[in-house]
């Protein structure tokens, strides 16, 4: 498992589930459909992602395709880092 997926899973388990339940949801499970996160929860998640991976989530990137599962976040962070490194080259 990628470190991004593992770190986000651990963050969700600690911050949203208070370590009271196993964070054993699938990598492609929708946080919305599983009712893991509400709108404030997503704002917390976005802040975690921005601070952990030194990226800026733009307004038009606040969509489920980028943020609603571990798989989605993993791919999104990889794309953002790729864009960042390409721009720096």
């Amino acid at each position, binding site marked *: 498992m990628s470190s991004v997926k593992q770190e986000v899973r651990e963050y969700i388990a600690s911050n949203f589930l208070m370590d009271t339940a196993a964070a054993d949801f699938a990598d492609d499970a929708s946080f*919305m459909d599983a*009712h893991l996160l*509400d*709108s*404030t929860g*997503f*704002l*917390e998640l*976005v*802040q975690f992602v921005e601070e952990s991976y030194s990226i800026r989530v733009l*307004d*038009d990137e*606040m*969509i*489920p395709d980028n*943020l*609603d599962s571990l798989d989605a976040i993993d791919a999104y962070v990889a794309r953002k880092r790729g864009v960042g490194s390409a721009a720096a080259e």
Partner: protein
Amino acid sequence: MDVFAIDHVAEIERIGGWMRESLVSPLRRRGLVIAMSGGIDSSVCAALAVRALGAERVFGLLLPERDSNDRSGELGELLAGHLGIRFRRHDIAPALAALGCYSERDEAIRHVFPEYAEDWKSKLVIAGGIAGGINFYKLVVQSPDGELHESRLPLADYLRIVAATNHKQRIRKTLEYFHADRLNYAVIGTPNRLEYDQGFFVKNGDGSADLKPIAHLYKTQVYAMARALGLPEPICATVPTTDTYSLAQGQDEFYFALPYAQMDLALWCVENGVSEEGLARALSMPAESARRIFTDIEAKRRAAAYLHARPLLFGTGSGR
């Protein structure tokens, strides 16, 4: 078919009877206190109370603060005069200032817009959900020269602004209960069905009350009820606002996905098992948009569970 059509005469009588019975038992109070914002909901509640009890048993409050629209107070006084009830005007701005309502809010705003000053105006605007994204809030500020600026709010600033402005609803409720205690009256809560269902209220603020007489009525029905009750035209024609932020702000900008008439219909569809396609046809919108509205309604219901929850008691599995 008008799904919101009701027999107003019968409904007024039915609500009035329930108010009288509730005051006798379990409330055991002698009248009702109502905070009048000048909006349609509190105006209808006040008129229903007067129909139920007579003007002499209803006490009105006008509770403006620094960001209140002057028009709200004018409509409140118009209503009090129309109904013939006693009322008191109490400016809550000094109390709010003492609590740090404005300074806490403004510090959070300056974290996003450092140039923000007392002569600027501000509001929060919801974004994302209805467009298929994730809900978030934008802060909109207006400089004295009229120029608008907006930015997505970081979580901590968003929470701080909301927490600070929630003082307004909570201080109002404190005063409502002061007068209720003084008069041995009960306090009316004024949410309509949409607000109650979707959690558009402040916990222990406007969400607190002894009885809520229109929480079963859609906003569309409340407007119709206002006319049936013969309320003055300026009140019947009011547009729903939050009257909480210094920039003009519609309720659909701040909380609901759509203007109230469409939100009423969407909620009615959810409650009556009408499909997304049915709502899409009724509102002439793509099925995908209707699906997002349904999703947003369910998400807000889940968020509202906290607002509706009584304190949980250990070992009982329930609240009281």
